[in-house]
């Protein structure tokens, strides 16, 4: 189906189902129960997961396939946001011109940066992209203030021209009149499930983006990119010029980042320069590595895990911890709460850093590799006498 083999079709269908039922899946605890604060099924968070999933999937096309570690991808995200908001201001509050413009502008921008940066590889490439992104960030704050509105950030105002919108058009980003912030609440079995237009819009785009990434992974083009990662010199010796391939990968991942930036602006029509700072680029690197670089599902998992934990962990404060550990003896309770509160609430970044370090040290393949290891553990117990020589293992599915 759609140029996918049977296995990939099944995989794709699973992904679509997972995305469609996210409002259920992220709301596993009933309302009012002690666990309700672990529910992540509110539209804002779900949309963020989808958006950063797109960002990480795109980043993975560059880093996972070619091995080029870019530390400047947030610049494309920021550029995408800015161009989307400008489209809102100039043309219309319909989301499509904004998203198309975000992708086009970020593609041009990444073509420029990629053309320059890809002349070097390894750490030099990382530093070149880092320098480029820092330059864009600083310029967005200082000289380009007429374009970016500096520290205040670019916003949509009622006084904007918006030449395509007539009188009485919607005042918020909309999908041909359907407002993205509108949602339908379903109350069932003590649970409240929210179905939000914005989330489903992001989810549909994320699925399309994921499908495109899947096709890229399976294509001859993707194979060349993987060859670049394993041995670029040999590839050059065989007479293949790798530059156009790596540049296309860079531009594609830049377009994904621009799309994600555009979607961020769609969900909240405000663009600020802080989206382009280099630690924001570090965040997408963390997501990709945490999930598993070079796998299809990994970056999405990483983005989901980080955005979910970020929201949940920063909500947990000391009083909640005291409630949880009230059953412990007093002295023990205070010390347990003290230790845990270092890692929650304000200390969320500490947890993130530690988690990231542990993954890099012990699980270089990320969550996906962890899942594979566990699966292998179970499989080995069931069939201990697999004959490796006569029944060669099929190559592991790239998405597993």
């Amino acid at each position: 189906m759609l140029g996918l083999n049977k296995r990939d079709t099944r995989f794709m269908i699973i992904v679509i189902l997972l995305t469609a039922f996210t409002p259920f899946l992220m709301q596993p605890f009933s309302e009012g129960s002690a666990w309700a604060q672990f529910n992540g099924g509110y539209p804002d968070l779900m949309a963020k997961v989808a958006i950063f999933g797109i960002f990480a999937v795109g980043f993975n096309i560059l880093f996972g396939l070619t091995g080029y570690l870019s530390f400047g991808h947030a610049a494309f995200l920021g550029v995408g946001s800015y161009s989307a908001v400008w489209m809102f201001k100039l043309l219309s509050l319909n989301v499509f011109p904004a998203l198309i413009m975000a992708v086009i502008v970020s593609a041009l921008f990444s073509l420029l940066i990629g053309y320059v940066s890809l002349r070097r590889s390894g750490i030099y490439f990382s530093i070149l992209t880092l320098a480029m992104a820092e330059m864009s960030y600083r310029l967005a704050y200082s000289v380009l203030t007429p374009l970016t509105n500096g520290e205040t950030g670019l916003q949509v105002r009622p006084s904007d021209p918006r030449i395509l919108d007539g009188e009485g058009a919607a005042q918020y980003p909309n999908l041909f009149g359907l407002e993205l912030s509108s949602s339908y609440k379903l109350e069932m079995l003590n649970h409240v499930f929210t179905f939000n237009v914005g989330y489903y819009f992001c989810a549909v785009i994320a699925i399309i983006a994921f499908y495109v990434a899947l096709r890229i992974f399976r294509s001859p083009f993707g194979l060349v990119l993987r060859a670049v990662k394993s041995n670029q010199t040999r590839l050059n010796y065989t007479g293949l010029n790798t530059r156009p391939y790596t540049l296309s990968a860079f531009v594609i991942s830049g377009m994904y980042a621009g799309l994600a930036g555009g979607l961020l602006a769609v969900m909240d029509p405000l663009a600020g320069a802080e989206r382009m700072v280099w630690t924001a680029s570090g965040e997408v690197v963390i997501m990709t590595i945490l999930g598993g670089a070079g796998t299809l599902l990994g970056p999405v998992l990483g983005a989901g895990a980080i955005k979910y934990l970020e929201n949940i962990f920063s909500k947990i404060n000391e009083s909640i911890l005291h409630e949880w550990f009230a059953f412990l003896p007093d002295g023990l309770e205070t010390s347990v709460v003290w230790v845990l509160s270092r890692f929650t609430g304000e200390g969320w970044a500490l947890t993130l850093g530690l988690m990231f370090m542990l993954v890099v040290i012990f699980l270089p393949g990320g969550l996906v590799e962890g899942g594979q290891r566990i699966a292998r553990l179970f499989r080995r117990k069931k069939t201990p006498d697999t004959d490796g020589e006569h029944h060669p293992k099929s190559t592991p599915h790239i998405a597993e």
Partner: protein
Amino acid sequence: MDVIFLQVLNGLDKGSAYALIALGLTLIFGTLGVVNFAHGALFMIGAFCAVTLQKLFGLSYQVIDESKKDFLGNPLKVDVAYLETWLGPELGAAFVNWSVPLAIIFAIPVMVLVGFVMERGLIKHFYKRPHADQILVTFGLAIVLQEIVKYFYGANPIQTGAPNMFRGALDFGVLVGFEPNAVIYPYWRLVYFLFSAVVISGIFAFLRFTTFGMVVRAGMADRETVGLLGINIDKRFTIMFGIAAAVAGLAGVMYTPILAPNYHMGMDFLVLSFVVVVVGGMGSLPGAVMAGFLLGILQSFASMNEVKSILPGIDQIIIYLVAIIILLVRPRGLMGKRGVMEE
């Protein structure tokens, strides 16, 4: 003429900081072959050593002073520092006053220890892994260190003053024959420059004129052969990591009066010092120092109003611009050796 002179001087203090951090980075890269993204965090920890010492010296208790009364006639409670009771008021006050320079003594063992723990505990396991992994794990470490410092000291910058003697500024222009008040330069920045010059020449002399330094240099050139000669090169490289950490820490200690330290100052300096290392040439110590001063001075020239009116925003991006040009035109950097990390 005096304007140019002033800008060169202005560039020197920032350039000194860049040079010191880049020197440490290059030492680590040259000896261990590790790209250390946590080096900025070491600079930040150094700065917080100074903050800690100042706080320790300032620890006080309250006594009731009968000689002073508030407006109701009750005796006032007065804070008295422990140091002033133990050492006498004058000596105690002197300690508080000189806490930043004294923090050097305090910071060296702390930083060397931090460096040892980092190298033995974490970085040791990453020698054989790709550079990307080294970047990632040290980046994670930098986040962790930053958050720990943030927990103990809060998110706001903490003012840490220079000794009273060095507050104020020197009319430097008069000394070299310009008009009075043409070239005004704060004392502490001069101290910072001299200090960094001493540290840098100390490191170079150490590597040049001691047997230990000779072995380290030999190890940088060919690690395997040195190992075959029966020398425990790993141990020496660990010590060099400690020294590099101490250099970054000292740069941080002395920088506190110029820039009030906060928990993310390390990240801010890290990017710049990486750029400095790349411009100077990966693995080249003189290159790192030279590029540090060069970029510091360039930055201060770019922030002149005359330059800014021609090229707006140039002061924000000059360093990155120079780095990009250097990387594209001469990828091994100004003084890098041919073939070192030249891909």
